[in-house]
């Protein structure tokens, strides 16, 4: 059975290799305010507002780079074909996706009621990645489980 929308199997490894530096960069950006100087861009002219506060006129693209790396890496891992991508694996894939979406929104609902104020931005940030992370975890767990037993 031909599964559409999947990448060749080798993308799983490419994704893992890409994930490591991207995640490291993401952690540096998020927790240590790290920025690559060469990724700073000037947007428009310097602006000084009526209270004499210098408004930001540059943006730094380090966080964009890190997030892009993490998302692309997770997509590669999640959408890489298994070595033998057959009907049972396709079903397990769908099942895991269903799980991931459901759990993701349950977590989001819980966080919505428990986390307030600025911290909620963090929730939104992690929530961008949780669908893929839960999917990858559940899918591989299920496949590993049905590899065991017997023989």
């Amino acid at each position, binding site marked *: 059975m031909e599964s559409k929308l999947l990448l060749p199997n080798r993308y799983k490894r490419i994704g893992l290799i890409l994930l490591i530096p991207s995640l490291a960069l993401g952690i540096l950006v998020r927790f240590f305010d790290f920025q690559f100087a060469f990724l700073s861009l000037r947007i428009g002219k310097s602006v000084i507002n009526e209270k004499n506060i210098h408004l930001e006129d540059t943006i730094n693209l380090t966080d964009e780079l890190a997030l892009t790396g993490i998302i692309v890496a997770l997509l590669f891992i999640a959408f890489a074909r*298994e070595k033998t991508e057959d009907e049972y694996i396709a*079903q397990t894939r769908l099942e895991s996706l269903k799980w991931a979406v459901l759990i993701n929104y349950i977590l989001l609902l819980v966080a919505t009621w428990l986390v307030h104020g600025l911290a909620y931005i963090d929730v939104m940030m992690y929530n961008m990645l949780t669908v893929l992370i839960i999917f990858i975890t559940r899918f591989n767990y299920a496949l590993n489980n049905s590899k065991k037993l017997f*023989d």
Partner: protein
Amino acid sequence: MKNTIRIERAVLNITQQDLAEKIGVSRQTINAIESNKYVPSTILALKMARLFKKNVDELFLLEETD
């Protein structure tokens, strides 16, 4: 639904891996079918029947609950 795949496999003396390779699926699939966690498609059932030289309804049997 239950099936006799494990028995037929024992008759031919082949492993789950051997069977998987012969009909072009993963070992997980054979394992899931044998442990009644997965009902294979008609195509897969026919391939197994051909390999074991049996009729499909000798390999797969309906149960009361089906």
